[in-house]
C-alpha cells in the first residue's frame, strides 16, 4: 500500500482557508464564487471537503477540475481517480472546471495549465489523495455519529457502514467531516483493489453535448451584453493609422465603435449586426513593409541559413570527417509550412466588468495566465479577476496562448467601451489570427556504415522558437529551444549513431507561433521516421526489422513497434495495389507505433487502415486512450494532406475551411488501436498519436511510388505512379 506525505499544514496551504465553519478553496473570493459553491435550487447545500471535491447534502459529489475539458476526457478521468479512493456513487458525480487559483496549479509545471499531454499522470496522486482524504474524514465523522471508530467502518457507494450495519450517507456527514482536521497520513489503495483505474469508463460530458445544453465560451449570454467583432490588421502587429466608423454606426444594432491596441472593435446587440458593422468599417493601417513577409522568401532564407553553422543541440564523434568518407551519402532537405490549429469553436471571450471586479468566461487552457494578463490591462489585482472556464470547443494548444491574445483583446474592448461584451472571432479571424505551428526546414546528411546502419548523421533545423517570450522561456538553454529539437536531439536512433551533430537556427520572423498538438514532434518525427525508412531501403532491409535493430536499447518504442507490426499483419500479403508503411516515435512520455495501409488509384491516395499501438504505461481509461489515438491520427492526417498556411506580403492567404481543408468522413481510415500492457512510467495520450501518422503514410507512399516525400502537405506530383 502506498502512502502519501500530505501533511495537514501542506494541505491547508495548498487548498483551503477556514471561513464560516466551512472550508473553501484558497484564493476564491467567498461571496463571488457563484458558479461553484452555489447551493442547489432544491435546498441542497454543498460542503467543501477540499479544493477538488464538494459533497452535497443530497449526496451529489461535485468534482472540480484543475484541467480544462477540451475533448481529451479529463471530465471523466479525474472523477475516476477521485472515485477510486472515495467510494462514492458514480451516478452522483457532477463535474465543474475549477477557478484560477493556487490549488489548481499544475503539479509539474508550476503554473495552471492544461497541456503537454500531462493531465492524467500529473494528477494521478493529487486527485486520488483528494478522494482518499475526504473518505477518511467522512468515515471519521460518521464513526463519531454512530459511536464507533473508523477502523470498524467501511465505505461503499457513498455510505459509511458500521460493523453493526448501521449506515450514514456522505451527504449526511459532509458538514461534520469538513470541520475535522485533515489527516496527516493518507494511504492510497493498492492497484490490486482498483475498481475504476484501468477499466474503460463512458464520458461524463456526453449527455449535455448531445442535446445542445453544454455551454462553450461561444454560448455565454448575459442580459445587456453586447457582441464585439474586431477588425484586425492585415499584417501581424500593424497598428491603426485612422478609421472611419460612420457607415458602421449607421447599421441598426451597432452601438459603439472603439479603437483597441489590436484593432478596431464594433459592438452591437448581436453578432450579425457587429459583423455587418465591421464589414462597413474603413480602417487605414500603418504597415511596416519590412515586416510583411512572404512564404517563398522565407523558404529561400531558411535554405540559406541552413548552410551556415548553428547552435549544437547534440553532438558525438566527428560527423564531418565521416560524411566525407565513401560514396553512399544520403542528403535531403525537408520543409514544413505554418499550420493553424483551427479548433471548431473560433476564439471568443466574454467579459463582465464592474468598477472593482472583472468576470471572464472563456474556454482556456491557461486560467491564471489569463487572470494576470486581464488584471494588468485593467490595473486590478489578479484576485479581482475571476476566470470561469467553459467547455472548450477544441484547443490543441491554441487556447494556451502565451500572449493571452483573445482574452486580452476582449478585456480591452470592455475597458474601452465600458460595456459587458462577448468578443467573437469569425472563422477568418481565427484562421488569420496567427499563433501557428512554426514553419520548419530540416537539412539532413547521413552516411550509412558498412552494416547499413547510420554511421554519421548531420542534422540542421531552421525554425522559429516557440518558447521565446512564453512562460516557459527558461527552458531555452544555451540557445536551444527544446520544442524545436525534441524528437531529434533526444531520439533513440541518434543515441545509437557514433558520429552525429544536430544544429539549430531560430530566426525571428513576424509571424506569431505557438505549440500545436505534439509541438516539435509534428515535424521531427516525420524527418526521423522517413529518413530511417530510406536507410532501411538503402540497406535492403525490412523497415520493421531495420528499426528493431536500432531500437534494441529502447524497450518502449520496441514494444509499441512489435505490437503494431503484429496486429497489422506486417509482412503478410495485402490486396493488389495496397501498400504498407510504418513509423514509431516517442513523445510526451509515450511511445506510439503506427502501420498505415494505403492504395493510390488514379493518382489519388486512399488510406484504408491505420493500426496503432501505444505504450503509455498505465492507461487509466483505456477507451479514452484509444479515442485520443484516433483523434491524433486524423489530426496528423489532415496536416499531411492539406495543412498549409502561407503568407503573401505579410497577409495570410487562407481564410476558411474551403482553402484550409480538413479530413472529412469520406477520407477517414479505419483505425485499430492497441495498448501495450506496460508497467513503464505513465505518459500522455492527447498528443503522441499525431507524430507517427504522416511518416507512416509517407513511407507507404514510397512503397507504392518509389518517391520520397520531403515537403508537406502532399503535392499531386507526389502521388503520380508513372
Amino acid at each position, binding site marked *: 500500500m502506498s502512502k502519501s506525505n500530505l501533511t495537514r499544514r501542506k494541505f491547508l496551504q495548498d487548498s483551503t482557508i477556514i471561513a464560516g465553519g466551512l472550508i473553501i478553496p484558497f484564493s476564491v473570493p467567498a461571496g463571488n464564487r457563484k458558479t461553484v459553491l452555489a447551493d442547489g435550487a432544491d435546498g441542497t447545500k454543498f460542503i467543501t471537503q477540499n479544493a477538488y471535491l464538494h459533497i452535497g447534502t443530497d449526496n451529489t459529489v461535485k468534482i472540480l477540475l484543475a484541467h480544462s475539458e477540451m475533448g481529451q476526457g479529463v471530465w471523466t478521468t479525474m472523477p475516476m481517480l477521485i472515485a477510486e479512493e472515495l467510494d462514492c456513487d458514480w451516478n452522483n458525480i457532477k463535474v465543474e472546471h475549477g477557478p484560477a487559483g493556487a490549488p489548481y496549479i499544475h503539479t509539474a509545471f508550476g503554473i495552471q495549465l492544461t497541456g503537454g499531454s500531462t493531465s492524467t499522470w500529473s494528477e494521478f496522486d493529487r486527485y486520488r489523495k483528494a478522494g482518499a482524504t475526504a473518505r477518511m474524514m467522512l468515515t471519521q465523522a460518521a464513526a463519531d455519529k454512530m459511536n464507533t471508530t473508523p477502523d470498524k467502518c467501511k465505505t461503499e457507494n457513498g455510505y459509511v457502514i458500521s460493523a453493526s450495519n448501521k449506515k450514514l450517507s456522505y451527504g449526511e456527514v459532509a458538514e461534520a467531516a469538513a470541520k475535522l482536521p485533515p489527516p496527516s497520513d493518507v494511504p492510497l489503495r493498492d492497484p490490486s483493489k482498483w475498481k475504476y483505474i484501468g477499466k474503460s469508463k463512458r464520458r461524463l460530458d456526453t449527455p449535455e453535448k*448531445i442535446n445542445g445544453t453544454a455551454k462553450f465560451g461561444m454560448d455565454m449570454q448575459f442580459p445587456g451584453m453586447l457582441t464585439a467583432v474586431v477588425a484586425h490588421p492585415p499584417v501581424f502587429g500593424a497598428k491603426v493609422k485612422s478609421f472611419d466608423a460612420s457607415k458602421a454606426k449607421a447599421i441598426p444594432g451597432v452601438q459603439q465603435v472603439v479603437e483597441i491596441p489590436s484593432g478596431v472593435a464594433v459592438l452591437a446587440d448581436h453578432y450579425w449586426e457587429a459583423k455587418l458593422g465591421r464589414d462597413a468599417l474603413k480602417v487605414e493601417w500603418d504597415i511596416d513593409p519590412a515586416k510583411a513577409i512572404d512564404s517563398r522568401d522565407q523558404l529561400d532564407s531558411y535554405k540559406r541559413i541552413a548552410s551556415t553553422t548553428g547552435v549544437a543541440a547534440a553532438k558525438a564523434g566527428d560527423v564531418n570527417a565521416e560524411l566525407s568518407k565513401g560514396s553512399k551519402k544520403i542528403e535531403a532537405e525537408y520543409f514544413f509550412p505554418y499550420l493553424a490549429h483551427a479548433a471548431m469553436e473560433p476564439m471568443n471571450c466574454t467579459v463582465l466588468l464592474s468598477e472593482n471586479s472583472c468576470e471572464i468566461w472563456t474556454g482556456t487552457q491557461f486560467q491564471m495566465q489569463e487572470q494576470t494578463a486581464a488584471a494588468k490591462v485593467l490595473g486590478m489585482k489578479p484576485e479581482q479577476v475571476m476566470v470561469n472556464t467553459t467547455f472548450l470547443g477544441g484547443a490543441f494548444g491554441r487556447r494556451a496562448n502565451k500572449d493571452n491574445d483573445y482574452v486580452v483583446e476582449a478585456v480591452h474592448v470592455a475597458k474601452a467601451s465600458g460595456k459587458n461584451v462577448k468578443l467573437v472571432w469569425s472563422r477568418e479571424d481565427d484562421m488569420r489570427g496567427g499563433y501557428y505551428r512554426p514553419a520548419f526546414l530540416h537539412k539532413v546528411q547521413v552516411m550509412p556504415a558498412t552494416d547499413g546502419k547510420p554511421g554519421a548523421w548531420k542534422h540542421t533545423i531552421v525554425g522559429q522558437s516557440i518558447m521565446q517570450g512564453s512562460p516557459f522561456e527558461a527552458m531555452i538553454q544555451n540557445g536551444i529551444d527544446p520544442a524545436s529539437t525534441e524528437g531529434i536531439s533526444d531520439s533513440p536512433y541518434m543515441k545509437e549513431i557514433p558520429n552525429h551533430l544536430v544544429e539549430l537556427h531560430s530566426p525571428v520572423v513576424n509571424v506569431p507561433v505557438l505549440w500545436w498538438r505534439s509541438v516539435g514532434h509534428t515535424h521531427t518525427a516525420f524527418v526521423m521516421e522517413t529518413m530511417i525508412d530510406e536507410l532501411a531501403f538503402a540497406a535492403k532491409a525490412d523497415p520493421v526489422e531495420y528499426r528493431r535493430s536500432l531500437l534494441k536499447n529502447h524497450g518502449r518504442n520496441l514494444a509499441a513497434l512489435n505490437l503494431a507490426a503484429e496486429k497489422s499483419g506486417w509482412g503478410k500479403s495485402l490486396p493488389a495495389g495496397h501498400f504498407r508503411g510504418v513509423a514509431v516515435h516517442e513523445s510526451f512520455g509515450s511511445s506510439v507505433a503506427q502501420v498505415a495501409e494505403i492504395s493510390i488509384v488514379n493518382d489519388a491516395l486512399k488510406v484504408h487502415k491505420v493500426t496503432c499501438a501505444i505504450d503509455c504505461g498505465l492507461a487509466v481509461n483505456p477507451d479514452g486512450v484509444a479515442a485520443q489515438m484516433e483523434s491524433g491520427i486524423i489530426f496528423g492526417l489532415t496536416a499531411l494532406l492539406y495543412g498549409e498556411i502561407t503568407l503573401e506580403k505579410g497577409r495570410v492567404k487562407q481564410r476558411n475551411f474551403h482553402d484550409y481543408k480538413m479530413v472529412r468522413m469520406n477520407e477517414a481510415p479505419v483505425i485499430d488501436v492497441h495498448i501495450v500492457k506496460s508497467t513503464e512510467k505513465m505518459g500522455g495520450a492527447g498528443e503522441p498519436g499525431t507524430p507517427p501518422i504522416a511518416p507512416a503514410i509517407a513511407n507507404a507512399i514510397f512503397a507504392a511510388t518509389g518517391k520520397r516525400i520531403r515537403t508537406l502537405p502532399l503535392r499531386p506530383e507526389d502521388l503520380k505512379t508513372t
Partner: protein
Amino acid sequence: MVKLTINGKEHSVDVRPDTPLLWVLRDHLGLTGTKFGCGMAQCGACTVHLNGEAVRSCVTLVSRAAGQKVTTIEGLSKDNSHPLQRAWLEDDVLQCGYCQSGQIMSAAVLLRDHPNPSDSDIDQAMSGNICRCGTYQRIRNAIHKAAKLQKEGGVK
C-alpha cells in the same frame, strides 16, 4: 417581425430579414446548441432541419425560414432518447463536442431516409460535417448502431 416555428413552438422575432437563421437561433432565441463554425456552409456545425431537411443555418437567411418548421438539436428529443443520442452515449463518440449537434442533425436526416445506411450512404450524408477531434470512426459506428436501435424501437 419574422414568424418562425422552432421545435414546435411559435416565435416572432424582430430581426433584419438578411440575418442568417443561425444567429436568430443563437442570439435572439438563446438556442445555443446550434453552433457557429465557419459561416460559409463548409463545416456543418450549424446544421438544423428546415421542414425536415438538413440545412446549414449559417447561410440560410431567416426570411427563407419564415413560416416554416425548424428543428434544432434542442428539439431532437426531450430526454436524449433519439436512437442517435443513445448510440452516441453508448459508443463514447464525442470529444470536445462542439461539432456534434451538427453531426447528429445531419445523421438524423440520413437515418430517416436510409433506415439501414451503408458506409457509402454515411460518407455521402456526413462529409459536409467537419470534426476537428477526428471522431469519424465512432460517428460511423454509432450511426450503424442507431439504425439498429431505430429498428428495434420502431419508427418514431
